[in-house]
């Protein structure tokens, strides 16, 4: 038993400790210069790195849009599929598909669908009267919301499934009592379902938060961070700076900041839940 535990700690902890070590060095892989200790200067340099600050702000924007869309939409889908009607289980099974399908492949399918001149999205919007949609991925203002929508397509179903599990576990008594007292559907939702579901919603939000802050795959595949840097998230910038531009030590400090960001925001959200109940 113990060797296995030890092996896991090594596999997981060693890279992170090594990362910490790298972050205080000037470190490059090509060239013959050995790594040199630079103290905290990598972190200090981050403050003046405009591209870093912008990617950080963009990631927060991405995350906020993601949470604001995923959680209400997922909850709404869960409420719908919590009702008992024929074929409901088929729909629940189908909902699993977007989140397990290979993200790279689906990102490319979305690129095809979002094509500004030939895409099916343009066509479908035209059917409902929206004749001049934006250029989606080629428009600097629209690229982030568009990527958020693709991310939402993948992950809103997960929120829905988590909420369905939460709804199924709710106690029946409060609802029965409310029915007896003649509460309306809306009142039952607002005063019973929503407060009882709060812990579930916070858990779903925490999971989405962790992954939204780290979003990279679909961005890399669909826009590569462009147009310009208009969709460059912090994780993508991190990848580029460390592994494409060969500033390994500097990249390590970006990775630590991203890790700290995920850690801190998750803890804050967990605290919020503590305060609520």
């Amino acid at each position, binding site marked *: *038993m113990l060797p*296995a*535990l030890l092996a*896991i*700690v090594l*596999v*997981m902890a060693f*890279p*992170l400790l*090594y*990362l910490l070590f*790298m972050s205080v060095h000037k*470190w490059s892989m090509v060239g013959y210069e050995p790594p040199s200790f630079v103290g905290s200067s990598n972190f200090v340099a981050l403050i003046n790195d405009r591209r870093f600050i912008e990617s950080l702000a963009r990631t927060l924007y991405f995350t906020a849009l993601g949470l604001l869309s995923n959680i209400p939409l997922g909850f709404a889908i869960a409420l*719908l*599929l919590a*009702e008992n*009607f*024929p*074929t*409901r289980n088929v*729909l629940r099974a*189908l*909902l*699993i*598909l977007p989140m*397990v*399908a*290979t*993200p*790279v*492949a*689906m990102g*490319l*399918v*979305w690129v*095809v669908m979002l094509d500004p001149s*030939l895409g*099916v999205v343009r066509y479908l919007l035209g059917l409902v009267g929206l004749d001049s949609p934006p250029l989606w991925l080629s428009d600097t203002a629209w690229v982030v919301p568009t990527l958020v929508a693709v991310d939402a397509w993948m992950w809103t*179903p997960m929120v829905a*499934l988590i909420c369905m*599990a939460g709804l199924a576990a709710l106690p029946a008594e409060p609802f029965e009592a409310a029915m007896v007292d003649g509460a309306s559907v809306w009142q039952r939702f607002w005063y019973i379902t929503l407060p009882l579901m709060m812990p579930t919603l916070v858990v779903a939000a925490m999971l989405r938060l*962790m*992954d939204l*802050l*780290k*979003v*990279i*795959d679909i961005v890399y*595949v669909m826009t590569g961070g462009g147009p310009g840097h208009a969709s460059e998230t912090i*994780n993508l910038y991190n*990848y580029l700076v460390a592994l494409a531009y060969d500033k*390994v030590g500097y*990249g*390590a400090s970006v*990775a630590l900041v*991203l*890790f700290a960001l*995920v*850690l801190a925001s*998750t803890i804050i959200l967990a605290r919020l839940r503590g305060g609520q109940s």
Partner: protein
Amino acid sequence: MKASLNRKVAYIGLGWLVVGAFMLPFLWMVLGSFKTTVDFLSYPPVWLFQPTLENYRQVFADNAFARYVLNSLLVAAGATFFGLLLGIPAAYALARWRRRAMGIVLLAARMAPGIAFLIPLFVLFLQLHLVGSYVSLIASHLIFTLPLTVWLMVGFIEALPVEIEQSALIDGCSVPGALLRVVVPLTAQGIAATSILSFIASWNNFLFALVLANENTKTLPVAVLGYIGYTSIQWGTLMAASCLITTPVLVLALCVQKYIVRGLVTGAVTG
């Protein structure tokens, strides 16, 4: 009665409309994979057309595709196998003796961005001359298959009654013996589900293979990007390849429906 029937019909209609919208990309991918270039590039988009198998023929005509499939299978199978080998004993220890520190390490792994592991691993593998090798790919995928396996297996093992193992231990069975002869057989179903989730996570992973694989060892998600050439994009072939890549995971996922959310919650995803 009539009112409740109307309600049911409304729910069915609304439910299929919403979930159907989520299925559109799959439909579009499958349709696109059977379209000729002319059909692919026509606007308004065509929904009914003379299907062609040419795109699939193109994918298989490229000998490298079979190689990428093998690479993906090998890496996913390896990462799953070693994940189980280390993860099951660890999960057993956690479930029975509760090591709090381990839980924290695993939670940190869930939150840490993939890149935080990837940078040090890349440098390490570079120094060991292992970049581009299957070893580096499998070892790096353990970063997420291992926590996934441990978290899921802790749940399955905790659900077992302790008495069975205890009687095995009293009868003179060693702890590893009890694990192998009692716990593993009794959690076989859980192990199967865990293997599938772990396999899917590895199969879908992009970033690690992007950095660590070379031309010969690259896995499908990296290889599929190759269809976007510098001069022309073979859209139909790209859709056919996408279908071929995603179908196995979709089928596997439907087999373990019950466990999918648990798997995702515990960390099938790394960014």
